[in-house]
């Protein structure tokens, strides 16, 4: 059966709750959680190029993790799963953060070259440390909150490259095992925040479809309790 995409983004009345599902690192973990609460994820697990899958009580809408708050805030998805790192970067998105799902645990860190003093020296002699990151807004906020001035350089690809070739003194990035850092001779200078996958909800759906959302949250909470 082909996944149906009828209904349009605004057809929120009745029908299955729409759940924004992050492609990429959190995809498997998200599907596992849904499996555990009895949602059929077989279609979504297949190698179909479709973006929307009917899974009984839920309609699964797949997208980049960083798009999840956008879809959920606008109500194009009622609920969604994304990383805390995404929520930190897009902290002005008005969505409910309902549940810490526990999986996808990473750390947001400030890292610099091993044994290198240029972060501290940049700050002391030049008034600012140059930080390369994919999380420019969160980095600005974090440094401003601790009374330091960063010169934030936004990059889209491998952030680890920036300090190796002198684009930046350090990086702010999400670290899982730390292997990429180690292989590039970088070390953690400062822990910024632990990040895990989170369940979020649209503000209006949280009110108007409260019974369904509360039921889903209850089941997921039960299934992910450690």
């Amino acid at each position, binding site marked *: 059966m082909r996944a149906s995409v009828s209904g*349009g983004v*605004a*057809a*929120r*009345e009745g029908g299955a709750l729409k759940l924004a599902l992050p492609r990429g690192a959190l995809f498997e973990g998200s599907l596992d959680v849904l499996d555990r609460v009895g949602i059929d994820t077989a279609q979504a697990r297949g190698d179909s190029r479709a973006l929307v899958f009917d899974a009984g009580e839920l309609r699964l809408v797949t997208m980049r993790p960083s798009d999840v708050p956008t879809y959920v*805030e*606008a*109500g*194009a998805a009622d609920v969604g799963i994304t990383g805390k790192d995404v929520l930190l970067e897009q*902290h*002005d998105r*008005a*969505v*409910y*953060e*309902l*549940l*810490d799902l526990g999986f996808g645990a990473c750390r947001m860190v400030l890292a610099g070259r091993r044994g290198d003093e240029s972060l501290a020296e940049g700050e002391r002699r030049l008034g600012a440390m140059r930080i390369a990151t994919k999380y420019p807004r969160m980095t600005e906020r974090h440094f401003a909150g601790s009374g330091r001035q960063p010169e934030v350089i936004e990059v889209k690809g491998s952030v680890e490259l920036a300090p190796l070739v002198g684009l930046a003194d350090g990086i702010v990035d999400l670290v899982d095992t730390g292997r990429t850092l180690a292989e590039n001779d970088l070390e953690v200078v400062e822990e910024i925040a632990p990040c895990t996958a*989170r369940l979020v909800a*649209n*503000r*209006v*759906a*949280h*009110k*108007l479809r*409260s*019974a369904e959302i*509360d039921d889903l949250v209850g089941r997921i909470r039960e299934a992910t309790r450690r």
Partner: protein
Amino acid sequence: MTNPIPPGTRDILPDEMRELRALQSALSEVFERHGYGEVRTPTIEYGEVLARGDERGAPAAYRFFDESGELLAMRADMTVPIARLVAGRFADEEPPFRFSYVGAAYRAIRPQRGQMREFLQAGVELVGADAPEGTAEVMEVLSAALDAVGLTRAVIGLGDADLYRQLLDELGVAGDRRQAVLDRLATHDLVGLEAEVGSLGLGDAERETLLRLPGLRGGAEVLTQARELGGGAVERATARLAATFEALGARGVADRVRLDLGLLRDLGYYTGAIVEVYDPAIGHVLGGGGRYDELMGRFGRPLPAAGFALYLERVHIAQAEEERLAREKA
């Protein structure tokens, strides 16, 4: 050659303008019929006047100096200017005062669909009428306004702004810890709330109360569920909500109202009842309001008050979506 306009502003062309105008007149007609005469206040006010309205001063995003060095600001809503107007222009007259408005307000938000930095608000203010009757009257006007613009499925959420402030006082949570809890609630961060509440060193029952209350929403049964959690602050808030809900029932508008103990609005002047408006056709809040019994006092005329504002552009989008859904169904 492009001649730009500032981010978050836009031009409105005739087709849209005709529909917006029709929307405005439908709303104005409802307001007038309920005895709320329309007023207009300046778009710019003294910065100090607007800051007095919202202690945190955050909403007045656009500020500048006039030719004599006075700090001016673009209004962030219409409630504060009307509070100033009532206190100044009606200083010696007998309350209650009923006013309505349709006008632009300004906030430095991230622009997106139906949410610009310059946006239109239409609403009413009822100054000098106590809870619960004053609140119920305003909500009755709100309900009539939603029907008049065709949003018959729209729902009004009703909560209580004092619930958590009083509850935290009662639990002896003060200072930064108190503010941190309120911030988590205002930003809908229930995961952060759990962590914050967990670090307060409260007993199990108190922690349970703080974590379960924000999830309680629905009909009158919500009040019973809340009372079971116990405590004086919860008792007082549920009593206020029950009284308002009863007054709404007498006016025949309780059906579209959903009680919501998790409701918190980010404007600093609300006390007691707070409301938000939702329509199933769109994912954004269409408007809101509530009681602001302490605001008038800051302008030298202490009077209880309540009001609401609808975001006109979002109401317009909701209208269009409802029409589209109806067409699809047909």
